[in-house]
């Protein structure tokens, strides 16, 4: 797994080798220059002690300024090259991930939660980005400091280096121990935070129950107890974190104490100059950072490792309805023939057959309706026509071609599928309805003629014109409020605008009132070049005029025939359904007429 992770990181950076190299080069320059200022101070002190060294001192001041100037330039450069590259790499990875997501099938989305997928695309990518940017930076800093500063110290005085550095050796161990503790307690904190969040969510969701039972007090007590746990967890984390910085400081100060004592002796004994003493003081202060950075870069790396594991897992997901090796993608519109041949189906990962041995040939232009209770298999059956789920070879044919041989895209272009869920994008009405129309150009005068026509067929044209901004009205979660029926009609219009050869309506008229439904069905019938229609419904009115009606029970075809034929079977499903429906209609008419009065 580590190998794969490394490959992922390397692939992400591949495009940015050059800016990364520049970034690392300038970083190296900054860190090398870090050695210089203490040396300059050493010369300053030594020169000042000598006396009458004005020129030398001014030269040193100039040099100090020069070093600061170059360092400033380099710091600008490494940020702009190193950190910016990491952001580009993060952007690329996010694009790659989302590109991949768009290629995954219904089964994948049935299993995953939106929140998780979103956090992979943001938090996990960010963790990797951090390892590539700040992570690499801290690691580079640590290595470079450790390679240079001790060397400079050693050159000045091997003996003092030993005394001053001795306590610092403890730091990496301490940092590592601390980060582990912090991680543990941080997890605990997250846990208590999410419990608070869950309990709040639950409480507000059930606020009516709480209020109805007047149990607000008990809920507040429960919440307060959780909050108290959170306080204690936070404090236990704080105890670790509060010691971290000060302990590092203290370790460093031990070096300073050692320097003062032993270095002081050396100065008095003229083993080293006073300048060396001063330079050492600065070096010791400088050594804290690389020791810390070492620990930090380990943490960056570990987080990235966990995140890239999750991302790799996602990238390994494959669609279960792939294109065949030689996909069939006819140029012309399909004739619209559909055939089920011993069709059986179970959802991926399930061992229960939802459809069993279905046999049927639907001729081009025919209108077939499926009736059945929830769970009878209507939706499953219709969803196979657009290959939302995989179906075995030799079972389902469109235009006499096995659906497994069709190019998925071509198949979906031919089959206009409208499902039960109404989903509209946060775009304008015109954009939503023209969604399936390729090369849609929105002329100033109004939407595409195809879109207008489709809106009329779906009996939603007048509704659109009645909206505050007509075709330009925004829809979606944050857009205008439409009724369920309006939304359904919009999704039907959206599918019709593509002019599919086969139209599939899976309970797509359930929220539309009966009169409007009648209008839609009529206009569909009168549509020029009328094509094959497969309709699943709960309501009799939706199916009555179909060429053939099929009742579906537990994944099997029970009855097949026209309305008149099926009505003859007195004990049949269809007849029972019809009677129930009639009573309901009677009741509805009664209610609409004003009840008992």
């Amino acid at each position, binding site marked *: 797994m580590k190998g794969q992770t490394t490959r992922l990181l390397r692939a992400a950076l591949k495009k940015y080798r050059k800016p990364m190299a520049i970034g690392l080069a300038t970083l190296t320059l900054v860190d090398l220059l870090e050695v210089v200022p203490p040396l300059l101070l050493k010369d300053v002190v030594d020169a000042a002690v000598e006396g009458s060294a004005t020129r030398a001192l001014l030269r040193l001041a100039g040099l100090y300024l020069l070093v600061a100037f170059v360092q400033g330039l380099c710091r600008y450069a490494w*940020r702009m090259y190193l950190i910016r590259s990491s952001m580009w790499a993060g952007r690329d990875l996010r694009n790659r991930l989302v590109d991949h997501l768009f290629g995954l099938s219904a089964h994948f989305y049935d299993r995953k939660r939106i929140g998780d997928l979103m956090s992979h695309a943001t938090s996990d990518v960010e963790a990797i980005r951090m390892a590539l940017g700040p992570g690499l930076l801290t690691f580079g800093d640590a290595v470079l400091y450790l390679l240079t500063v001790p060397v400079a110290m050693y050159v000045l005085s091997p003996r003092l280096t030993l005394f001053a550095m001795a306590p610092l050796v403890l730091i990496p161990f301490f940092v590592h121990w601390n980060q582990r503790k912090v991680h543990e307690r941080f997890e605990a904190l997250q846990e208590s935070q999410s419990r608070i969040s869950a309990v709040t969510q639950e409480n507000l969701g059930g606020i009516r129950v*709480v209020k109805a039972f007047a149990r607000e007090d008990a809920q507040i007590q429960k919440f307060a107890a959780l909050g108290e746990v959170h306080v204690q967890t936070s404090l236990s984390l704080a105890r670790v*974190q509060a010691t971290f910085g000060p302990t590092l400081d203290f370790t460093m100060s031990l070096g300073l104490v050692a320097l003062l004592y032993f270095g*002081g002796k050396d100065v008095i004994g003229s083993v080293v100059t006073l300048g060396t003493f001063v330079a050492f003081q600065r070096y010791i202060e400088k050594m804290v950072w690389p020791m810390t950075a070492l620990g930090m870069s380990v943490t960056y790396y570990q987080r990235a490792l966990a995140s890239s594991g999750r991302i790799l897992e996602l990238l390994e997901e494959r669609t279960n309805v792939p294109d065949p090796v030689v996909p069939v993608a006819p140029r012309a519109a399909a004739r619209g023939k559909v055939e089920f041949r011993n069709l059986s189906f179970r959802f991926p990962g399930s061992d229960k057959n939802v459809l069993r041995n279905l046999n049927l040939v639907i001729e081009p232009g025919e209108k077939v309706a499926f009736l059945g209770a929830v769970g009878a298999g209507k939706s499953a059956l219709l969803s196979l026509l657009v290959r939302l789920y995989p179906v075995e070879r030799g079972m389902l044919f469109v235009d006499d071609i096995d659906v497994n041989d069709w190019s998925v895209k071509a198949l979906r272009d031919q089959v206009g599928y409208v499902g039960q869920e109404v989903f509209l994008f946060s775009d304008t009405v015109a954009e939503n309805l023209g969604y399936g129309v390729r090369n849609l150009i929105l002329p100033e005068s109004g939407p595409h003629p195809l879109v207008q026509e489709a809106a009329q067929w779906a009996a939603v044209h007048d509704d659109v014109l009645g909206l505050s901004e007509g075709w330009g009205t925004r829809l979606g979660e944050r857009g205008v409020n439409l009724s369920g029926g309006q939304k359904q009609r919009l999704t039907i219009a959206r599918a019709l605008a593509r002019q599919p050869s086969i139209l599939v309506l899976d309970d797509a008229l359930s929220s539309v009132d009966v009169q409007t439904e009648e209008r839609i069905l009529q206009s569909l019938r009168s549509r020029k070049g009328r094509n094959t229609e497969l309709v699943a419904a709960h309501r009799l009115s939706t199916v009555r005029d179909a060429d053939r009606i099929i009742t579906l029970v537990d994944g099997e075809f029970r009855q097949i025939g026209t309305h008149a034929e099926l009505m003859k079977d007195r004990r049949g499903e269809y007849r029972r359904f019809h009677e129930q429906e009639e009573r309901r209609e009677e009741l509805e008419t009664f209610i609409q007429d004003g009840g008992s009065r």
Partner: protein
Amino acid sequence: MSAIDHYLDVEERENRNSGQGLHSWFRLLGLITDQRGTFAAGAGLILLGSAALLAQPWLLGRAVDIALRPGKGELLGQLALALFALNAVRVTALMAQTYLFEILGQRVMQRLRIQLFSHLQTLPVRTFDKNPVGRLVTRVTNDVSALSEMFSAGFISIIDNLLRVLGTVLLLLWLDWRFALVVLAPFPLLVLLSIHFTGRLRVCYREARAKLSALNAFLAENILGMRVVQLFNREPLHLERFHQVNESYTSATIRTVRTYAYFQPSITWVSGFSMALVIGYGGVQVSEGRMTLGILVSFFALVQALFQPIREIADKWNIFLAGMASVERIFSILDWPREVDVPAVPERASGIASVKGHIRFEDVWFAYDEERWVLQGLNFEIQPGEKIGVVGHTGAGKTTLIQLLLRFHEPQRGRILLDGRDLRDYDKRSLRATIGLIQQDAFLFSGDAEENLGLGRVLDAESRARVEPALKKLGYPHWLGTAEQPALELLERGSNLSMGERQVLAFARAASIGPRLWILDEATANIDPETERALGQVLEASSGGFTSIFIAHRLATVREANRIFVLHRGKLAEEGTHEQLLQVNGLYARLWRFQEPVDNSEAKESSPAPAHPPGA
């Protein structure tokens, strides 16, 4: 078009109403008044720590001047010891101060959290219809956390660093004021730069955050609508849009990097300039004997130490501002009006415990919004101990009736009397506590079965006695914990309970409070006949003698009632016993004929609408 624009405006709308800063400050200070002691101790420790910190460069300077000369070696030991002690004090003060302020912050947080949560409990039901739960949860969690961070990482750190800057400047002036003035000459420039860049960073951060939430909104919508995208073969379009959104977010974060890329070098340069002044001016002074070397050495360290706190302040300032925005959002919720509850006659709880259950609706009109009347002059009377069934079409006003009885809403016209007294004269919570409500969906909370019965409150002996026999009879004695065996743990969303069992729980929940008035809202709509029968029996035993109101879609449920009310369009259309109503041959009779065959067959649809074909 730019895809990101649309997602952005929502974020902006959320950020708009900020800027009543000072007022929020005082309210925030109000929260810490009783933590004054902790605050004072922390402040004292900050002072102590800062003093010890500043003393260190001074001590080293003194060491250079007095100890590092031949013959003064014996002083070194003492100075080293002093340095050690100074650091020990400083580090201890730092730890203690950090921890103290964490305690303080956490206490304030906890108090605010409880205040917020408690306030949410008192809001009228209407408020929750308008505000998505998710957003309110964010206030209780994220905003409170942001506030905590603002306090410990922002506020305290800013004060600490300001003190350090001030102390350093004073010390520099005290050591050698002329030297100090020369060295500090670039300092105002640094402050100006910091202010400038902090302002720019704030803009950058805000933009990056807005772009990130746009990116999240895009992802959420697209993952939700993935099926549509794929069925219409429009993946390329969406990918192109995502790349735009992603690019826009990345550019925003890069702008932040760029701002830092300018900020950091400018600090490097200004501090380099200051140090060059130290070297040039101070070095010459020393070499000409006008100043001691020790002062120069002290200046080296002090001038370097001056720049770090400035950067820290610049960094924390934005955390601080983000926290203030959260504070304002929290306070704005605390200002939302509570459920009004001022009884006209403050007799209140006195009479409520022994309510007899006489209910009277007098010309009750009610509308959820201003336009559509749900109840239109409802009139009826229920005698104590009567068992009333309420039926009617969807939207006839059945559930609204309950909402009014529970006083989740108040009628706009007319009044409701309980035992001859206006409902508004009772205290809301005591009123609700006398009503045993069983709803169609027993809302389950996490925790075990017993906790769910008490809704967070531990059942007292009396409550236990009320439900224990019934639970035993129904076969769920293990729902109540005993000394030997804890109560049954419920899985997430009650997945280890069947629909029937959930109703049993809802019943026990109601029974445990010993209600004087029972309301069942579609309580048996989703359960199997066997459980329904068993539940009916224990219910009969518990509610016998008390007024009970059964609301039902399925008429078989109310058949046995003393009287049945048929609601139609917000009015009482028919009333009477089952037989009487059948004879009237009106709405009830038609409803009955419609439902009868369904009830006789085995069909028990999970969906309440009888629109599915039978025999599912």
